[in-house]
Structure formats: C-alpha cells, structure tokens
C-alpha cells in the first residue's frame, strides 16, 4: 500500500528570498533531476556532492535557471531515500517552474510533511531532526506548537504571552464568579469591564496582524480574489496577469474543495490568485458560490480586484459588492474603456472612497501597467518598516492570530447582545488557546493555576 514513488516540493518559504530549494526524494529522484538538468550526469556522480548546471525546458532546451544541485543517495539522507536538492534563485515564479518541471518528469507533489513522514516510515527516527521539519505537518494539520515556538521571534513570544496573561486574568475572574458564587472578595465581572479588556487585546492583535502582512506576503504570496458581475472582464484580467507574468498553476488538495490557485509575480509582489478555477469555469464567483461563500473568500483574501463594466450603469449588485469590500484592501478596475462610458466614474469613487480606481481596457491591453503599479503601491507604501518583515512570518501564526481576533470579535458581539458572561467567556478562552498555540502553550490546567493564585478561595 505504501507508494514509494518519488516526491517533490519546494522546501524553502515561498517568496522573494535569495535562494529557494526544490527537494526530490525517492528511487527516481536522480533520474528525474537528470532529465531537467544540463551538466554532469547526476546518475553517476558521487553521493553527497554538489554540482553547478542549468535547468532547461523540455524539448526546446531553453534555459530556465542556473542552479546548484546536491545529490545525496540513500540511506545517508534525511528520508533514507535518494534525495536531490535543486538550489535556485529565490523568485517565486522560477522556483515554481522548477517544481512543475519535476512533476512533469514524473515526481509527485509531496503532501505537507511527507518528507518527515517518509523519514519516519523508513526508520530514520531521530526526533530532533524530524521535529525541525515537522513544522510543515503541523502548520497544515493544526496540531502543532512545539517546533513553531523555536522559530518564533522572542519579542513576539513575549508580546503574545502578555496578551494571553491579560485574557486569562479576565477568564479567571469570570470563572471565580462561577465556581465560587458566594466569594465576595472580587467584584462581579461586568459586561462593560469584559468588553473593555477584550477590546484592548483585540486592538493589539490587529496591530500585530498589520505588521505581519508583509511577512506573510513574502512567504506565500498575497491571496488575491478577482470579483465582479458576469462579463465584466474577470477572466480577461486573470489572463492578462497570468500571461504577463507566466503563472504557475498549482493544485492544492485537502482544502474543503480543491481550489485552483495561480501564482503570479507582479513587480516583486507575489500574488496568489484564489478560486481562479471558479472564474474560468463560470466566469462568475458570486453566481457560482453565492454571496455568502464569496464573502468568505473575500474575507480570507488579502487583496481584492473588483472589476466593473465601463459600458454599463452601476447595478445594485455592483453596489452590493462595493459595499462588501469597502473595508478591505481593494483595487477597483473600471474595464472596457474601449467602449462608451455609461458608468458614472464619480459615483464609483464616492462609493469606494479612498481606494485606488484604475481604468483599463483589458482587451486592448491598456491600463495593465497602472494596475500593476497600484498593486505594488498598495503593499510597498504601507508604511511598514522593512525590519519588521519577519515579525510574524509564519502563515500558521497569522492564521492563528486571525482566528484569535475572530473569537474576540464574536465575544464582542455576544456582549452587545447581552449574552451571559459564562458563554462569552467561551470565546475569550478560545482566543487565549489560539494565542497559546502560537507560542506552544495550551495547557488547560494553567487556568486553574491562575484561579488559585489570583484569588483566595475555599471553605
């Protein structure tokens, strides 16, 4: 049942790093690498040697990239299988290209953490080494904390610990009111007080996320959604971005449904275009998955490209979309400027106050430069200091921060609708747990410890 096929993956963070590595493991690793590579014959070189050469397109033999290739034969490798590591310049597009080539020549895209899993299954059982790579399994399966902690910036760790302490003191306060209702020494926690404390923490998380933004971009690309009514030119936009920037298509299974994502590199900003399959198939995200679902896609996106038709007056649906995105990072495209302007540009600008509006004629290939400039501007003039780039760079951390914030938002809603404190507390505790996952601390008992150190309880 164990398929011992050869797997490949990008083993460095996606982004604009100096060097990126594509790793292959399995009995065909050398053969596959050899097919992509021009230089020495990799199938006969000594084990644990490194070689300079070129990666070429199949058939055309056109050079894609200059690379250094490490050849390591099993069993003295991480997975105990033959392993090849191709080091290339770190551009997202080029590294993705190498990966697709490896897949083209017969490798299978590795599941998250599959190298580690193989290392384990092949009896390579040094936990200390496995754990460093386990991050991958963990990031994806949401089960892990321990290793991520080590990667954590010390400052961030302290900061999160402080936020957690504020939350747990609040929770302990609510708990003491519940478990010791007659204990008169603490004032009853009130909705107002709770709200005050939650808001403080929530604001801090928001700041952290703002700082995280660029770190995340560099790691895995800005998730970008293209939206708009049917026939406004969404697929033209997609094609324009993709053609211009030679997109790599990746299939990412394992999400709720298999969303096709495409990566493009726009002036050094890697964009991850989400749900492009939806656009290609139906030309209409909203139509296909409904407003609610698209709202969710939008919420998860870092950047939204909203396309409007220059040749039609603004419809209710357009207005609805403009309203949904008004608090998000959005660029509005008024497309089809080659046709008569029946759209009221001023009204659009009024509705989406302060956000960039770009006019394009995608069919005539006009305005694309301006769009790319707007995209780059949006993310490089955000006033974020470059030294903070790695502040929260781990995608998992960002996800956890977002979830924690969401829990606090829910708590705030519950406070507004005057829910009982012990129910609101569920969301606050959840936020505390999520923050704990970032720093690797989710021990339930610490609440009880807090309870008894903070209050003098008992009969």
């Amino acid at each position, binding site marked *: 049942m164990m398929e011992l096929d050869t797997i490949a993956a990008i083993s460095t963070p996606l982004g604009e790093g100096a060097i990126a590595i594509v790793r292959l493991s399995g009995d065909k690793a050398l053969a596959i690498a050899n097919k992509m590579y021009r230089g020495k014959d990799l199938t006969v070189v000594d084990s644990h040697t490194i070689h300079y050469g070129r990666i070429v397109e199949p058939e055309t033999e056109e050079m894609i990239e200059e690379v250094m290739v490490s050849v390591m034969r099993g069993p003295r490798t991480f997975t105990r299988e033959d392993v090849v590591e191709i080091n290339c310049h770190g551009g997202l597009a080029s590294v993705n290209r190498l990966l697709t080539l490896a897949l083209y020549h017969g490798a299978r895209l590795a599941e998250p953490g599959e190298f580690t899993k193989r290392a384990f*299954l092949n009896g390579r059982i040094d936990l200390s080494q496995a754990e460093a790579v386990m991050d991958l399994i963990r990031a994806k399966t949401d089960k892990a904390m321990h290793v991520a902690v080590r990667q954590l910036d010390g400052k961030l760790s302290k900061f999160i610990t402080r936020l957690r302490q504020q939350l747990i003191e609040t929770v302990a306060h609510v708990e003491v009111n519940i478990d010791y209702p007659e204990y008169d020494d603490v004032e009853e926690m009130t909705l107002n007080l709770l709200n005050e404390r939650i808001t403080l923490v929530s604001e801090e998380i928001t700041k952290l996320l703002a700082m995280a933004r660029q770190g995340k971009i560099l790691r895995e690309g800005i998730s970008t959604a293209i939206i708009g009514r049917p026939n406004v030119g969404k697929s033209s936009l997609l094609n324009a971005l993709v053609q211009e920037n030679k997109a790599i298509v990746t299939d990412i299974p394992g999400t709720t449904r298999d969303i096709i994502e495409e990566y493009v590199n726009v002036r050094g900003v890697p964009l991850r275009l989400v749900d492009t399959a939806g656009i290609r198939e139906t030309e209409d995200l909203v139509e296909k998955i409904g407003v609610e679902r698209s709202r969710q896609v939008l919420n998860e996106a870092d950047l939204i490209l909203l396309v409007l038709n220059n040749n039609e007056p603004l419809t209710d649906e357009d207005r609805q979309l403009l309203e949904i995105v008004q608090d998000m990072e959005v660029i509005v495209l008024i497309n089809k400027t080659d046709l008569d302007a029946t759209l009221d540009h001023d009204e659009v600008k009024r509705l989406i106050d302060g956000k960039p509006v770009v006019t394009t004629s995608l069919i005539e290939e006009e305005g694309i430069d301006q769009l790319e400039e707007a995209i780059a501007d949006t993310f490089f003039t955000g006033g974020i200091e470059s030294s903070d780039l790695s502040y929260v760079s781990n995608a998992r951390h960002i996800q956890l921060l977002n979830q924690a914030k969401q829990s606090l938002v829910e708590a705030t809603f519950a406070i507004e609708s005057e829910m009982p404190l012990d129910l609101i507390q569920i969301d606050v505790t959840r936020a505390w747990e999520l923050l704990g996952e970032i720093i690797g601390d989710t021990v339930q008992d610490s*609440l009880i410890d807090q309870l008894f150190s903070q209050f003098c309880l008992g009969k």
Partner: protein
Amino acid sequence: MYDAGHYDVIVVGAGHAGVEAAHAAVKRGAKTLMLSLNLDMVAFMPCNPSIGGPAKGVVVREIDALGGLMGKVIDKTYIQMRMLNTGKGPAVRALRAQADKPLYIQEMKYQLEQLDNLTLRQAMVEELLVEDGVIKGVVTETKAAFYAKSVIITTGTFMRGRVIIGDVSYESGPNNQRASIKLAENLESLGFEIVRFKTGTPPRVNSRSIDYSKTEIQPGDENPRHFSYETTEEISDQIPCWLTYTTEETHEIINDNLGLSAMYSGMIKGTGPRYCPSIEDKVVRFHDKPRHQIFLEPEGRETEEVYVQGFSTSLPEFVQHKMLRSIPGLEEAEIMRSGYAIEYDAVVPTQLWPTLEVKNISGLYTAGQINGTSGYEEAAGQGLMAGINAAAHALDLDTLILDRSQGYIGVLIDDLVTKGTNEPYRLLTSRAEYRLLLRHDNADLRLTKIGYDLGLISEERYQAFEAKVVAIEAEKKRLSKIVVKPSEKLNQILADIGETDLREPLKALELMRRPKVTYDVIERVLEEESPLDFEVKEQVEIQVKYEGYITKSRQQVDRMKKMENKVIPEDIDYKAISSLATEARQKLEKVRPLSMGQASRISGVNPADISILLVYIEQGQIKRLSDEDR
C-alpha cells in the same frame, strides 16, 4: 480464614462512592456485598454538611439520571436548598443543598437495606485475594473470606489515615474512626503506586453559644428546586445559614501561632488541595486581605452542632479556641469537635482504566477519594461508574465509559486516569471544555437513555422521560409556527423587560432568542398559560436561546470525537516507536490510552508525539493490510 460467602461484586467501604457502587451493581443484577467499618456511618459526611454547588451539583443530577441515590436521598433530607448562579448562563447554574447529616445517613442506609440483592456487613477488610493478576475476594480482620468476581475499593481517607491537630497526631480515619492500615500495606505489596494526600476540616461549635445577631442570614430559596428527577415533594421549613468574617485579631492570633501549625511545622507531608486551604494558609498567602468569609452551617435539624465553613485548620486546639472567639458572633463559641488535618494514602489514578478497573488486577476497581479526588459528589460519581462496570465484569454485561462531552463524571474520570492528579482533585466548571453541554438542566437528556439501557432506570421513569423529550420538541415546533405581529401591547411588554420594539412580524421561537425574552414573556405575548411542565419550558427556552453557542460546542465535540474514535491497538509497543520523546513514551506506557483522543490529553505528550503515533498506527495498519494481500 473461613469461607464467608460468594458474591458477584464486593464493595469495600460505605461512603459516598461505596453506596452508589453497591446500589448500581445491585441494579444491574449483581449479587452484592457491602462491607463497612461502621454501619452507623453509611454515607457519612466527614466535612461540610452540603451537597452540590457549581459542577458538583451537575454531577448529582448526572448520578440521578443514571439511577443513582445521592439526589434522591438529599432531596429527602435537606435543610436548605439554593440555586446558585441564577444571574448567569444556564451552563453554570448550580443547585446546592445543606444536608441534615444524621438524617442523610439514616435515609441512605434505609434505602440500601431495601435492596434484595445487597448484603450489608460491618467488617474491616485487611487483605485482597489476588491470583495471577485476577481478583478473587477479600479477607477481613475476623478472618472471614468473601469471594467475588469483582471487588470495588472505596476506602476514602481511611488508608493509613493520620489525624493531625497542632503537634498532636494519631492514626485515625475521619472523625476518629479506625484507620485502615493492613489493607493499605496489602495494596502496596500488590504493587500499587501510592501518593500521600492531605485534607482538613474546621471545628464544629454549639449553636447555642453563637450570637447570630452579629452575623448575616443566608436563607434558602423560596421555591426550592431538586436534584432528583423523581422528587415531587418539597421540604417547606428550611433552615438558614449565617455569614460572618474573620477579624484582624484572628489573623494576628494565627500569625503568632503559625509555628504550631502542623502545616507549617513540617509535620504534614501530604499534598493538600489548593481550593480548600486552611485558614492559616489563607492568612499567609493572602496576607493583605483584611478579612475572610466564614459561613456558619447547621449540621442538621435535631442537633446543635454548627460547621464553621472557611475555617479549616490544623492549629493546636487552644489556638483554635482563641481564633474562633475573635470572630463576631463566636465570642462565646463552644467547640464541640476540633478542626483537624488528615493525611492518607491515595492510589495514583493513572493505574486505572477509564472503567476504573485497576490495570494490573483484573476485576479490581477503585473509586472515590482513594483515587485522589475530594468531595462527596466526585466520590459518588466514581462509585456509580465503578459499580456499573464491576457488575459488567462479573456478569459479562456492557461496560460504560462516559466521554468528556457526556458528563462531568466523564470529565472527572478522564482527567484522573489520563492526567493523574498531584493534589486532591476537585471538579470545577472550568475543567469541562464543553460545559455548555453539561448543564444542570439537561443531565436527564444526556444520560437517562444510557441509564435505562443499563437497567438502572425504571420503565415508568423512562416513559416519563420520553414524554418530556417529545413535549420539548413539540413545543419548539409549535412556537416556530406561531407568528407574532408587532403591536402596541407587545412592544409595551418588550419595553417593560428592557427590549427594543418589534417592527416586523416574527416567529415566536425567534422572538425568544432575544436575551431578555424568557418563556414567561412569550406566554404573556401569546396571552396564554402553557400547561407544560416547568422543566419542559425551561428546556425549550435554553435550547432556543443559546442555540448558536450550543451548536458551536457540538461542532467542537464532533472534532474531538474524530480523535476519540481513533483506537490505539491494545498490544501497541511504545518501546518500538523510538522517535517518541522519552517523556511521552514513559507517559504513554503508564497511561496506556485507549484512543488518540485520550493520548493527546496526557501531559508531556506533545503534538509531535501524537503525529508520530498517528503515523505509527497508520503504518501498522498498512502493514497488516499488505500482509493480508499476500
């Protein structure tokens, strides 16, 4: 040694765990023997005269839903009943009763005496008969050998019990009963891992020596609720408790005499519970608190003894006397019994399966305070489960393990057998991650069916339960069909309770989702008086009003169940998984979790170990599959 008889189940001890264990075993059809050191002390309360409270009260409801005795007996013998946390959400509302201690004993013993298949016998058990890892029976001090397929030990704090008052200390169980020494030694020789725990109790004073005018009255509820789903009659003449406070003088006396406290002189070696600190502990640890609450709780109707809650101490008797008299209302107080600390042996509970069966001795079960818990309710809950499972073992019936989403009893036992405990364990609502599902009001909905299937619930009661379930659903359906239209009258009702106007027509059910719109308000809005039972109305209201949160909790449970359903093979060899961290491997070998869910809750087993374990188990299955292919 003589052959004194053969049984299916023997219960050693007749405290709160023992009585539930014996009762449940009998209900499951087991011929049962219950041995007690002193039959006048059946279900005796050696500490506070109360049952219930947050989390604990829900346990009593759960026990009742599974056919147990505690709820029924306290409902017949309370002197005061209070619903706590009424201003909070439904998940944390908790019933608490002040018990009439002597009456509780009498009633419990009487209930047990009515059981056809139960033998009550006064005896001191000194030895367990174990052959090849299988329990065979017990031997008493008087050399009677009783034989059984299952034995449950519920010996509370009696095991090598030692009472300490200041610098005085002597071998004793609680309340100067005989300590159980030989059995403790026997357990040790059988290879049990033992810890030494400590707990304490305050002095009792004579009510006639108290000046209540200097204290605040703490009355019971006007309309008392009850623990048992079978209780129909309420007790009308409730007796109040009284509240007073320690003074700076009290704290001075304590500080001056700290050196004489057994806790601080190093005489006590056992670990005490943090949630039940002695008064000297409170004064030392929270020295800037000017005063501590002291509740004066009557121990019964026909006794003048009063329990001084909040005043647990192991200071010498003469200091206790001085301290008490520095408290308003207690200036003339006469001590009837001194406060004391008690040290005792407890079994490290990770030695047990979740059925409470001892891992290394088939057919032997332990339950209650011996497992490192504290509290009558915690003991009773374990006793019930041990009784159910010991009978199952003896009669080859289905066993019962409750998971963390089914009851506080499940949380309690899972915590004990998975994590162990380094202090006497007490249930708190914060120990339950799904506490919104583990409510006082829905214990019957959670557990009655299980109890019925195990033969613990009578046919009659089960039918009443089913009728209630039907009524709840029918009422929800009915309210979802009635449309309420905005009107001046309606908006006046809403304004009166502090809600905003209704603008659009709305289903009655939807209207009830508003925070302040209770079922009563709906009745007013609809101008009807529902003939439904109070508990049905309450249930409808809670289920509708908190639906969002309840759904969220259920989703969490579903996620947990996925891990819970991943079974770890019984024959797994953790030594073979060398990539597990050493600590994790040791813990896993000790706990021997039954599922990945349980494994993931063991402290010291981190997510990496769980990933590895998952991979390993997957690998094993792959191997087995490919073996079959051959």
